[in-house]
């Protein structure tokens, strides 16, 4: 995935060329790119991930929104080209603040600037790392018998074992986990367990779950950042480890699983680098809530809307998910991972996970 700076520059300039060319020809300037909604994601049979389909949207200068978008895009491109020439990089948040000085190109929210950066990836077929733009560190971490080498600020690759060389917080996943930043040396584990909440991650660490069941634990920290998903993908393909996702039992957590397994709608253009199509969901399922009689909260109106929208989401179009979503809608209940503590602090590591993981065939009891 390493691309020459010269090519990046050329691709970005060609976007501006298109706009300029339209003006010269007396045409209303326009950029078109794939529609980035759930109605336009299709299954990529080859890679088994969900990617953008053929629907295109047009950003045209005949409306103020469209014209504003084109102006912002030109400003972002100019900013990236400047950074490349001066050998700098910036975080997405920094770019959002820098845009304060861009007048008509000013972003009104960071999600707007993030979306524009993603659009540029989609249009140019490049990654934002190529643009010298990176996200904030988000603190997601790894614990387990995994050895990696990370290139530090001085450019030296340093070897780290994610069980012996780190504290209880684990190894912090850097913003880029590409080969030029992070090398996977070896791993001795049977599977990777990706955990949504910090509370549950800490519980499994304290209970020594990684050593007991020979697992690499990855803390997703809510909806996982790109680099976290990319690392899961690399552990899956390079070490051949199955990836198991363990989240709360609510509609938003189901989406976390979907983005790990099938790719997120926002980043469907790079799903093949990020998604682990073989990932499996261990829980908490709607069925678990009934089977284990877990303490619950009522679904909010918002939750119900989210579930109904998932029923129309192609990524959830499987028998397993349809039945789980319908059970949750019927019972009207959701539960947190930590609800398992109803049966004691050890219940999750001695009963729940071993039972569920053996059902999935990941371990043998």
């Amino acid at each position, binding site marked *: 995935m390493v691309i020459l700076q010269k090519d990046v520059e050329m691709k970005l300039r060609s976007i501006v060329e298109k706009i300029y060319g339209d*003006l010269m020809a*007396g045409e*209303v300037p326009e950029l078109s790119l794939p529609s980035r909604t759930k109605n336009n994601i299709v299954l990529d049979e080859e890679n088994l991930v969900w990617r953008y389909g053929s629907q295109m949207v047009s950003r045209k*200068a005949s409306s103020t929104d469209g014209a504003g978008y084109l*102006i912002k895009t*030109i400003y972002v491109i100019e900013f990236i*080209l400047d950074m490349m020439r001066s050998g700098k990089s910036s975080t997405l948040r920094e770019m959002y603040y820098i845009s304060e000085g861009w007048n008509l190109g000013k972003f009104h929210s960071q999600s707007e600037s993030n979306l524009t950066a993603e659009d540029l990836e989609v249009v140019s077929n490049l990654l934002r790392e190529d643009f010298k733009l990176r996200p904030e560190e988000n603190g997601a971490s790894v614990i387990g018998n995994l050895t990696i080498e990370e290139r530090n600020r001085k450019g030296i690759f340093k070897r780290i074992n994610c069980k012996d060389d780190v504290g209880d917080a684990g190894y912090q996943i850097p913003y880029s986990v590409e080969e030029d930043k992070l090398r996977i040396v070896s791993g001795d584990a049977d599977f990777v367990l990706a955990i949504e909440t910090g509370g549950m991650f800490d519980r499994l660490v304290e209970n020594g779950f990684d050593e007991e069941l020979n697992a690499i634990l990855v803390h997703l920290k809510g909806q996982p950042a790109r680099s976290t998903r990319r690392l899961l993908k690399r552990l899956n393909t390079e070490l051949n480890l199955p990836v198991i996702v363990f989240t709360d039992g609510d509609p938003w957590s189901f989406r976390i699983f979907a983005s790990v397994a099938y790719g997120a709608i926002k980043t469907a253009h790079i799903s093949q680098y990020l998604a682990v199509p073989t990932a499996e969901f261990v829980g908490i399922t709607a069925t678990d809530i009934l089977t284990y009689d877990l303490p619950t909260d009522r679904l909010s109106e918002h939750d119900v809307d989210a579930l109904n929208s998932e029923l129309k989401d192609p990524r959830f179009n499987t028998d397993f998910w349809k039945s789980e979503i319908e059970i949750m809608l019927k019972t009207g209940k959701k539960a947190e991972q930590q609800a398992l503590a109803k049966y004691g602090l050890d219940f999750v590591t001695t009963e729940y996970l071993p039972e569920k993981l053996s059902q999935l065939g990941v371990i043998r009891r």
Partner: protein
Amino acid sequence: MSEKGRSPHSSPVEISISEFFEKNRHILGFDSPQKALYMIVKEALDNSLDACEENGILPDIYIRIAKVDQDRYEITIRDNGPGIGRKEIPNVFGKLLYGSRFHAYKQSRGQQGIGITAAVLYGQTTTGKPSEIITKRAGDDVAFRFVLGINVKSNTPNVMVEEPVIWDQKSGTEIKITARARYHTGKQSVVEYMRETAAVNPNMELTYDDPDGNRMVFRRVADMISRTAEEVKPYPVGLEIGEIKHLAGQSSRKTVREFLVGDFSRITPGIADEILSFAGVDIEKRPGKLTTEEISRIKDAMRKVNVPPPPLRCLSPFGEIFIRKGLMNVYGDLKPSFYSKPVERKPSVYNSNPFSVEVGFVYGGDLPVDQQIRIVRYANKVPLLYQAGACAITRAVQETDWRPYGLEQRGGNGTPYGPLILLVHVYGVRIPYTSESKEAVAPVPKILEEIKAALRTAGRELKRYHQKSLKRKKAYEKFNLVGVMLPEIARKSASLLGRSVPDIDPVISKIANVLFITEDISKSGDRVSVTCHVFNYTKQIRSFRLVAFPPVGNIEGTDEFNIEKLESSRRIDIDFQVSDVKGNYPGTIYYFKGIDPIHVLGAEPLPADWKVSGIEVEVGDS
């Protein structure tokens, strides 16, 4: 029923009307010292305006409020009205329910003959002091001065002094009352009352000296005499039996037929015959001899026969100009963006009394968006400042669903939110009020219904404006697109690629469909030279009128320009000079006329109140 509340020896004691009101002064609105001051000023001012209006006099009013001690004030109100006959004075000011208009069939501010006497009574009760009245009729050499109070037990005037005095005024009346009162200037104060009264009576000149020695003058800004109501004979339909009986008893007509034709409005001989044959009453019978049974039949017959609607001469609406003034007084410096054409309902009848409703409103602009709308209430040309919650006007607003007209209103009832000032005027002969103090119109179904109908018409007007302004917003976005964003795309893309900036006119004409007005200015000394550019980016040839309004300084020569047949994609330049500009010139404001607003950017439609002046208030020392 409990026996506890009743005294074993109680027997009914007759009390006079004065005694009753002395003990129940809240019924007349004198329920607090603050309110009492307001009521005294209001009653006297309403009487003065009625008297002037009836006699075709441009009102000159003087009001003074002076502090006597901690909680007592002396209130003086003087007018240039026709004056009051010497013999009438004791009864007008010293006897409750003595009203010259009590049985008059026309719209006026006062009607029951209670108000001013109640003020005299209140002053007497709270300070022990009598009131002082000076009055002079036109043509008389001398004025008469009275000092009088009220004999409460018998409801009769108690005249202490009656003497001729020299008064340098041609005619008029002055009353001075000392009363327990509290003075304030905020909401629901005498000052607010004067201001709202001045707003809809622009032909009045009102001078006011306040207790702190400040003088306020509400200038006369219109010399016209307001459209006055004429007295008409009672409208027959809906009259009560007792009222018909009373009229029949008083009638000097010889036959019932003549009585019906002569003593009521809208009854022709043909209609009278019809009524009487329906009722089975002999047309030759003397009116005084009619039995109650016959009168009842006549009353029912009047409903069955087709009597034309009541005459309008007895009603006196504000009309468009005065409504605009009333609204202007409320919004002050906050310029609204929309001025409605007032809605005037056709008169209706309530209890055989004709009445009607008019509604005006202003909307948008600088008015606050996130607050409840303001409702300005008038009844028979008198501002209503108290008892909003009990008033038919407030109720009608709250019971109307404003959401379809573009206002925010939870659940479709209650006072809506939005940048709206609504003026509602209910006027008619004997408007029913919720109390004797006439602070709120009684919410009787017939009146509520009429107010609501007027509000709905106003609402539809508001909705039309919303639809237009939405179109204008779209047009404004185009302005931004054409004038700012497209040039920026051209400039920015060219500079990034290191090429020359492309000509974007062909692209503009592809997206815009507007007339576009901008200007260049240059200043030297206190003179500003302006070049106004008018671009026609539409596809048609355009002709219209442009008005230039410099916010500071004076324009030299004409401020109106005719733009004749400006062709598509062409530009025309207009040059003019503005003199006496001190400091910065903020740019000219342009108005246009004679073209659909959705086609114009950079200018506003000429406001409806262009060159109409508001109330002028001067503040200084007295």
